[in-house]
């Protein structure tokens, strides 16, 4: 009955390839780093100015000068390099990062993405999200299939059109939810395609919880 957060992260990790440079968003995407296959070289970029991000430090070894884009203390690796914010986003915008895995509030069937603000709520800012979705070659969204509202109802997140303010237009290549996996032909007119079902999930389960149009081509 649907994937756990860990299973979603493990599925997202299948998008990694040897030699990839990858930027991971906060939340479930962060967990993906636990599923990098042994022997595969994947360098993580942190957009505040670092390539080759290591794990959290041992207690007592935190360094205030060494944080990731989530402002968490981290460590370096032998492969690490540091650079400025403008160099970091030059790297991102210039298409040098192979893959970005990030969360979303809404994704539309044309690849539009909303994940930075909800009108009427305090806006904290888009940070680096708009640059990442615009600049990174391949964008993978990992999110719950539906949003749970305070009144107990559910709202679809995979939509015909996003109604929240956009982070980017025609940017999402792949969506991994707790219920399944969709590809999106973000630059063409191929639309959205359901390609995998999570364990114990049926096509009908997904149909009931998806507002956007999609074709089915299960692998």
């Amino acid at each position, binding site marked *: 009955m649907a994937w756990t957060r860990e299973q979603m992260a493990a599925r997202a990790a299948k998008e990694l390839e040897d030699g990839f440079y990858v930027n991971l968003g906060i939340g479930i995407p962060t967990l993906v780093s636990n599923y990098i296959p042994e022997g595969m070289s994947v360098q993580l970029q942190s957009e505040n100015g670092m390539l080759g991000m290591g794990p959290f430090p041992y207690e007592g070894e935190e360094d205030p000068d060494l944080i990731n884009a989530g402002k968490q203390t*981290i460590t370096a690796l032998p492969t690490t390099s540091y650079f400025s914010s403008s160099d970091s986003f030059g790297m991102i915008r210039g298409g040098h990062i192979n893959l970005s895995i990030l969360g979303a509030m809404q994704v539309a069937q044309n690849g539009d993405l909303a994940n930075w603000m909800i009108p009427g709520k305090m806006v904290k800012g*888009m940070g680096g999200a708009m640059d990442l979705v615009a600049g990174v070659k391949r964008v993978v969204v990992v999110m719950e299939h539906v949003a749970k509202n305070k009144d107990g109802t559910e709202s679809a997140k995979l939509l015909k059109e996003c109604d929240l303010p956009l982070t980017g237009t025609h940017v999402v290549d792949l969506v991994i939810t707790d219920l399944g996996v969709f590809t999106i032909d973000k630059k063409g007119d191929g639309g959205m395609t359901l390609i995998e079902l999570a364990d114990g999930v049926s096509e009908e389960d997904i149909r009931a919880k998806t507002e956007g149009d999609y074709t089915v081509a299960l692998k």
Partner: protein
Amino acid sequence: MLNGSAEADGRKDGSMRKVFKGPTEALAGLLRDDMMIMCGGFGLCGIPDELIDAVQASGVKGLTIVSNNAGIDGVGLGKLLETRQVAKMISSYVGENKEFARQYLGGELEIEFNPQGTLAERIRAGGAGIPAFFTKTGFGTKVAEGKETRQFDGEDYVMERGLFADIALVHAHTGDTEGNLRYRMTARNFNPMMATAAKVTIAQVENLVQPGEIDPDTIHTPGIFVKRIIAVNTGEKRIEQRTTRKRNDATPAAAAGGGTH
């Protein structure tokens, strides 16, 4: 700019002409109401905290602050918010700051959100004599509203303007008396671009050394960009999110986390 005797304004002599005694002396004569100040740092990492304290103490008001973040309550730029010295922030993410939220929701504080990469590039452009450039970032979003858009080779782009401030405050790990700077790890962030993008850049450094002590191949900010420099105490630096792992942890906890800050 650097008039007055070395004694009178707290500077030292001769080859030390850029070196000032402390943050108050280094800002003397530069601050006025309604000016634009760039402020280095990402979160609390690499922020020019002592220089910010001196801006607070000066009492100047109506400031436009260019900074990726807005500090936290009582730390960094959070202090200038408490004293209501800030009229406008140009930032990419303001995080968890109660005083900020209160003033913003109450209409007392204006905020211009820029995508982080656009903000970084606007500052870099301002310092490099580029008045405007095109970027894919934000096309088709609120960020592009009111801005010129344009296609190049079939892709859509937004035109963004360079940013140039009255003063820039930066923090570096090491600096020499000529103003050459070197940053440490991710404390580099916005500091190098900001150092280039203001009429007067003031640097606080943890280690003030003599010219020649920094390997010239490893200088991040050439001295030409730094007009005034002070040495600061390297006391305990603040950490915003202390995340660790246990020594007996078999699978190291993930440490990624970007995308929205």
